[in-house]
């Protein structure tokens, strides 16, 4: 009930005199409620009464020859009395409340959930064409129409929805899954070598193996023939299925100019600030925001609003970092090229493959640096080739 007492207001009174508790009888007979009565000493009594009764209690006490003082006056009515005189504050509060209520009818921030195969900028562009943009009113948006329009404009999506909470639009997307390529089981095929190598393992599941572990094969050579032998020595063409692993040797090269210029940050940075109200930008610095020569600019935006509330105000910070253009040193260039070659090899061998040995060589010619990687890999070389496609 404490909140109720604060809502109606209360006052802590102190009575001083002879037998101050006798006033409580007078209060009770007049149905004036009181609580927390506490006698601090023989001649002093404190108690709490409703705020609107405090004045009457004071008059009653004085009429009985007691000293009465209101130590504390609290509650909403007291607060209202003090605020009532400040008309400008009341008007400003009312205006803020009205602006907040009206601003919630508009979208001030759009959050796009990441989606495979589609960039956020594509989604935002499509949303803008569908009428979902910062500063637009969301109350007349139709979810179904919006979804259909979005799916029509972005074919990579399977499903989309826009949920508006307050002034924040949350866009949830689901990408289209690629249909797996159907395999024609009735089409006869052989398994051939995708590249030359030294066979380490042969696992035929359907068909007849033509090579075994330890054989050396060339690219295109048949490894498992699509031919099945029956119990009574009958033959039939089938689609060969199996796994063949081999050790392969690969040589790939990369090159780059020796005089390649790169940007190096000097360490000096400078920040500039701006405010965005809705779609209007106000720079808090002199001059324009074009990035000067010799600087790189990174801009970040942050919303200025309490948690859970979206307001049309965003703070922009632009960080300008000075850089100098220098030549990349030869060791750095070589390291970069070697890293690129290693990444290419890893993609080439696939998830079930492994690069077992790797070495690099470098050479220079005509102002170019050439790096060559010699790799030994353990990988699958099985490739299904239908009989219809064979020469």
């Amino acid at each position, binding site marked *: 009930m404490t909140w109720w007492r604060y809502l109606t207001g209360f006052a802590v009174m102190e009575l001083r005199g002879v*037998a101050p*508790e*006798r006033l*409580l*009888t007078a*209060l*009770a*007979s007049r*149905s004036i409620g*009181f*609580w927390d*009565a*506490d*006698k601090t000493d*023989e001649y002093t*009594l404190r108690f709490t009464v409703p705020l609107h009764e405090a004045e009457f209690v004071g008059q009653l006490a004085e009429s009985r020859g007691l000293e009465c003082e209101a130590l504390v006056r609290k509650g909403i009515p007291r607060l209202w009395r003090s605020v009532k005189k400040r008309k400008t504050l009341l008007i400003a509060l009312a205006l803020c409340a009205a602006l907040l209520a009206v601003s919630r009818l508009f979208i001030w921030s759009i959050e796009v959930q990441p989606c495979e195969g589609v960039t956020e900028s594509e989604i935002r562009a499509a949303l803008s064409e569908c009428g979902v943009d910062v500063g637009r009113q969301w109350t007349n948006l139709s979810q179904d129409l919006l979804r259909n329009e979005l799916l029509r404009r972005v074919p990579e999506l399977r499903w989309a929805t826009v949920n508006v909470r307050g002034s924040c639009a949350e866009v949830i997307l689901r990408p289209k899954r690629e249909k797996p390529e159907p395999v024609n089981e009735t089409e006869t095929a052989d398994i051939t070598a995708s590249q030359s190598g030294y066979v380490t393992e042969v696992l035929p599941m359907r068909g007849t193996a033509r090579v075994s572990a330890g054989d050396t094969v060339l690219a295109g050579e048949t490894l498992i023939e699509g031919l099945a032998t029956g119990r009574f020595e009958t033959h039939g063409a089938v689609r060969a299925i199996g796994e063949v692993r081999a050790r392969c040797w690969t040589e790939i090269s990369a090159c780059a100019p020796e005089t390649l210029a790169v940007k190096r940050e000097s360490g000096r940075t400078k920040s500039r600030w701006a405010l965005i109200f809705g779609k209007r930008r106000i720079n808090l610095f002199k001059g324009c925001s074009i990035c000067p020569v010799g600087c790189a600019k990174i801009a970040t935006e942050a919303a200025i609003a309490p948690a859970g509330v979206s307001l049309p105000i965003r703070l922009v910070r632009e960080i300008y970092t000075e850089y100098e253009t220098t030549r990349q040193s030869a060791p750095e260039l070589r390291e970069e090229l070697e890293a690129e070659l290693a990444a290419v090899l890893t993609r080439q061998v696939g998830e079930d493959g492994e690069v077992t040995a790797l070495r690099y060589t470098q050479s220079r010619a005509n102002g170019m640096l050439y790096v060559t990687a010699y790799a030994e890999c353990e990988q699958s070389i099985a490739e299904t080739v239908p009989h219809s496609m064979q020469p």
Partner: protein
Amino acid sequence: MKNTERADSRAARRFAIPQEGMGPSPRITISGGSHVLVEGLNALEEYAEDKVTASVHRGSVIIRGEGLHLDAMSEHELSVSGRIWGVELE
């Protein structure tokens, strides 16, 4: 006063009516050793941490104890809590 009292008692006995139904007689209820409710209150005479005196119809009620505290009070009722040592009627 004496004749009225006797008449009240005689009428209560004759008509089998409880004594408290015949007039504004006080009722004191003690709960445990920590709460006293006095009904039929006329006025609160004295209030201290160790003694509360209330005047009732035909006398006074004195509550003695420790840490006595006025819980609630209305025109005819008084509720006191604390460590109650004794209740006296005068």
